[in-house]
């Protein structure tokens, strides 16, 4: 094209010079620390899949973390460090483990003192391993694979449950609910998505259920994504399980629920484990479908004042109070407590402080924190149920805010 020709007539050297200059400028721009604000701030890197199929959970995670950071700063920051303020350093993993790991390198050079992430276990694994090289404290806000805490890395921590404990909790809760109703349910059918999340959880749940006398008569694995659940619904209909247990992501979770209704599949309860689509939005937008559906998941304690306040604030901000919000909030609190007790940002000291944390989170149905190999043993997943447009905790009984409607009405 004439235009480029005119621009570059016989000036290859000039172009190379120009390009190198631009390149150098860009590189210089990149190396200048992005956040040149308060010196002495405690920087916490947040790595989440802000672009890509998991953009919504990422936005919720960022929101929760930033809320926590603002709250802690408003309350005086890290007092043992002279009131040092917390500061978020945002990173986008773009749903890819390699980008997540690269973000860790970037953040390390930006001088972060801790990192939180990553929603996807695969990214979390790569990122926390990268962080381990520099001993940066790494808190998993959401990430259910147990491999995250089984690698013997002394810098990796997780406040919420992994699928091992969640599977166990789910089975205990189901047995409890079943027993309270006179044990009408004997059989379970699991519908899970095909990747590690669904497959791993399904395996563990099947084992755990057996020890409670509940038999898994059908396990249906489905693709990610699945466009159409008609056949699965029909298969379930002919298998006639008492309980249907979905373990999948939001889009498929909702489609399955709708299809089960359309095909008039009869069952005592839909009891999902880590149901991606079970949240206030679902209950709000599809009350008929959601009514009496049960999920076992990370959930806040609705009886706590701080939990109610957080929910009110989140909804006032026009957002749904999904588990990502308070899991991220809790994770920041955990990190902040580590800095507070360590009295400095020295990585060794902070990791030690985190490992010995006994933090009690008021808005979560947890016991005091107790870290064993990086996993918080005080955590628990609770069974929640949609009842008349709201969500109640129905098990375990010491945290229940309402009794279970089981079998569903």
């Amino acid at each position: 094209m004439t235009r480029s020709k005119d621009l570059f007539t016989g000036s290859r050297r000039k172009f190379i010079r120009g390009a190198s200059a631009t390149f150098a400028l860009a590189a210089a721009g990149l190396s200048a620390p992005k956040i040149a604000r308060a010196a002495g701030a405690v920087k916490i890197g947040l790595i989440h899949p802000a672009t890509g199929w998991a953009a919504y959970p990422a936005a919720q995670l960022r929101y929760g973390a930033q809320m926590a950071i603002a709250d802690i700063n408003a309350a005086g920051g890290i007092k043992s460090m002279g009131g040092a303020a917390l500061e978020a350093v945002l990173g986008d993993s773009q749903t890819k483990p390699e980008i997540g790991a690269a973000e860790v390198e970037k953040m390390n050079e930006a001088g972060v003192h801790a990192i939180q992430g990553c929603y996807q276990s695969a990214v979390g694994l790569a990122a926390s391993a990268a962080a381990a090289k520099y001993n940066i404290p790494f808190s998993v806000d959401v990430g259910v694979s147990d491999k995250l805490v089984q690698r013997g890395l002394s810098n990796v921590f997780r406040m919420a449950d992994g699928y091992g404990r969640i599977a166990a909790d789910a089975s205990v809760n189901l047995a409890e609910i079943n027993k309270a109703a006179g044990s009408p349910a004997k059989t379970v059918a699991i519908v899970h998505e095909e990747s590690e999340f669904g497959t791993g959880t399904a395996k563990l749940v099947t084992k755990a259920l057996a020890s409670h006398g509940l038999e898994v008569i059908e396990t249906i694995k489905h693709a990610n994504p699945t466009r159409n659940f008609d056949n699965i619904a029909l298969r379930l209909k002919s298998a006639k399980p008492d309980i249907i247990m979905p373990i999948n992501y939001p889009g498929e979770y909702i489609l399955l629920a709708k299809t089960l209704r359309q095909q008039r599949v009869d069952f005592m309860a839909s009891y999902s484990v880590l149901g991606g689509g079970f949240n206030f939005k679902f209950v709000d937008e599809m009350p008929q479908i959601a009514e009496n559906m049960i999920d076992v998941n990370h959930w806040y304690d609705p009886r706590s004042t701080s939990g109610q306040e957080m929910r009110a604030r989140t909804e006032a901000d026009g957002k749904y109070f999904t588990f990502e919000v308070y899991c991220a909030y809790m994770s920041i609190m955990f990190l902040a407590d580590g800095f507070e007790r360590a009295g400095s940002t020295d990585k060794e000291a902070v990791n030690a402080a985190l490992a010995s944390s006994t933090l009690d989170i008021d808005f979560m149905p947890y016991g005091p924190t107790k870290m064993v190999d990086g996993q918080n043993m005080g955590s628990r997943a609770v069974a929640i149920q949609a009842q008349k447009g709201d969500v109640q905790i129905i098990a375990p009984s010491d945290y229940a805010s309402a009794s279970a409607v089981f079998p569903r009405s």
Partner: protein
Amino acid sequence: MTLKAKNALLFGLAFLVAALAPVGISSKFYLDVLTLIFFTAYIGQSWNILGGYAGQFSFGGVMFFGTGAYTSSILLITFGIPPIFGIFVAVLMGAFLGFLVGYLSFRSGLRGSYFALITLAFAELLRVLANSVEFTGGGVGLFLTYAPGLKNLQFVSPTGFYYFSLFLLVISLAIALWLERSRFGAQLVAIRENEEAAEALGIDTLKCKLYAIMIMGGMGGAAGTFYAQKYLYIDPPISYSIALSVEMLLVSIVGGLGTVFGPLIGSIVLHVVNEVARHFIDTPGLSLIVYGVILIFIISYLPNGLVGLFRKTRGKKEDGGA
């Protein structure tokens, strides 16, 4: 100094700079970015061999990468064979897959978009299979243990992977340079320009295209091992999703089809644009919109790719600028 010698000197200097970069660049992040740039350029070059030189566009390039990754990983996990040997098997498997796909496709006379689409179909087929078969770990994927050491092709610091990817890049450039000078390369170009005429001239087009796709496959296989050993986790989406196939053709076309440095230039520019956009724009999505706009801009004004900035007409002798 002759043009050839001048180019050789430039090339040697560039290589020296690249080789010494880790000494000058203390930032591990930048080394990592460069590693990714080299990796993309390498795998882009593999696409370029078949797509740029031979003119056969493929949308399924990721299948060689994924197959290589699974090959060396399964050899490691199930048979304990260290990746330093496994990578060669990965190369062979990639080449073999290339042969299979190529034979089925080219023998049926598939060209143009038909060929591109069938490669996509093969990649999808492999993805579904990988999801359902036990020895690939199914949907769960394969986790590799962290065990740095040369025999595992794992390195503690990014510098190790930097040199690994630089090494791969140099090999890819060498292959392309060889193509430009060899009879085989000329045959590929002839096929690209006019396959019937090439056939009429006595070129065995089937054999040439098969060799080209086998080279692409072999190169892809090595890339898979590289990735597996660096990030220690692979699953069907990582190994067989279309994203990498698109990136391969993207850097080649943007950089310059059928040129030695096209994929490298394309990789550098696109990565830099992406990084800079992300650096200055925090809001998710916005930086990618800018990226998309710049991409369209580049293609609209440089229809021959960025390499076109360096030469006005192909084959015209450069006089080193005026």
